[in-house]
């Protein structure tokens, strides 16, 4: 039972994180792609930071920031009754930050590679920025959209350092598959560790096969 709970929790974390990243990533990638601001490199560096920082660094700062002993953690707990350390919500926050570049970068690249006049043509046809984004730009960056979704999902499934730091190892609450593997190996339970590891290999493989299939079809459809 613990095995399935852990796998379900892992998939739930990856699903929720990917959904949040999609909502946040689209407008941010759109802005980054089309802005002419001299601050663009600064924002791009901020988005890319989780790519190069060790996950434990991100986890450490999140732990410090949201621990009930910190000013922010205490304020959240006392005023909004929100506790982020060692909870599923905390795991989601950590995962969103950690996987942020994996959603934003493919989307930004997708927008930047669209023919330059596509958005302008839509505006001259009387369409708003929102309609243009929804009906013209996003359908034409489907491969980039799929890349962002798959990379964010897969990256969240595989993360370890951040979730361990902010979530710990509480069964059915914060114990995801990567933590469970580490835990079982530490207890010399190689059979159990293998069960988790093999399940993850199969799951991610199936996921990637589906991605490449849809991605190929999207490219054929559009160009």
């Amino acid at each position, binding site marked *: 039972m613990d095995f399935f709970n852990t796998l379900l929790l892992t998939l739930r974390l990856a699903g929720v994180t990917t959904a949040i990243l999609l909502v946040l990533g689209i407008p941010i990638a759109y802005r980054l792609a089309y802005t002419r601001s001299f601050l663009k490199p600064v924002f791009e560096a901020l988005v890319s930071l989780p790519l190069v920082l060790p996950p434990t660094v991100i986890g450490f700062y999140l732990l410090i920031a949201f621990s009930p002993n910190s000013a922010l953690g205490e304020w959240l707990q006392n005023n909004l009754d929100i506790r982020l350390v060692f909870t599923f919500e905390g795991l989601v926050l950590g995962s969103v930050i950690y996987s942020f570049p994996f959603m934003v970068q493919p989307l930004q690249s997708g927008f930047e590679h669209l*023919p*330059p*006049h*596509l958005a*302008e*043509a*839509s*505006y*001259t*046809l*009387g*369409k*708003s920025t929102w309609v243009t984004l929804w*009906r*013209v730009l996003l*359908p*034409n960056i489907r491969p980039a959209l799929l890349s962002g979704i798959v990379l964010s999902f897969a990256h969240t499934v595989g993360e370890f350092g951040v979730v361990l730091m902010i979530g710990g190892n509480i069964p059915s609450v914060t114990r995801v598959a990567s933590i469970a593997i580490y835990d079982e190996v530490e207890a010399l339970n190689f059979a159990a560790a293998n069960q988790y590891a093999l399940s993850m290999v199969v799951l991610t493989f199936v996921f990637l096969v589906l991605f490449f299939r849809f991605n190929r079809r999207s490219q054929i*459809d*559009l*160009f």
Partner: protein
Amino acid sequence: MDHSISSLNCSLELKDSQRSFHLEVDLQFYEKELLALTGPSGSGKTTILRILAGLEKRAKGRLTVQGELWQDSAKGIFLAPQQRSIGVVFQDYALFPNMSVLQNLQFALPKTENQTLIEELLEVMDLQELKKAYPRELSGGQQQRVALARALVRRPKLLLLDEPLSALDTQMREHLQVFIRLLHERYALTTLLISHHPEEIQRLADRVLVLEKGKIIDENLTPETKPEGLLLRAIWLAPQNGLIRVQLGDNELQMPQPAKVIADYLPGQEVWIRMVSAERFEVCDDEKFNR
């Protein structure tokens, strides 16, 4: 205020790796005229089109189109492209790859309009059989016709064409010039054509402005440069049911004409035709037509 005249008076600093000068333009255009803007690459032609379309926000100045104020920097007035009655055909056509020909046109259709205009445009532009095709399945000339049709779906006051035929070969260019002139007359448009093909301008434009380094250096209004009709090379086809027929590119044009004319040509022979109006053309003898 004379509503038949539109005017643009604007200035903009154009500075990039290729050029550095001040664009300063004061131009008027008249209702239903086809005004051509020509000049060397980088002289600011496309920038003027973008200012008219509302796609270039940095320009300072004033723009009125047929009595409506679209921009007045001094008063902080700037209408977004969505609020301007314009149709734009970009150099790369900018058709939406995820939509079919029909969907590209339907996307442009205001909610209050019905489909009649789309059906008419498909008919006029000879796109009926291509309406389910996607842009990637069309030739350059066909994409251009779709782009033209799409630009007209909103019934614009101003049609802006940014070197619309530059990517096409000579034969296709001549063929599409017919469509541009037909549309301009049929829908009583005010059209700005950017082009650097003198022969194209000669055939299409009512008036020509020459731009160099951001300034209009020449305006040509002489009657000699104003074509009495569009002259094109076509292939004579055997007459049918009392109608003379010519092949122009992919299209067959038909019209009643006196028997004498018919006797002068053989099927397959190349002839000059003069497009007098959207629905009418006449066949010209080579001798009569002194280019």
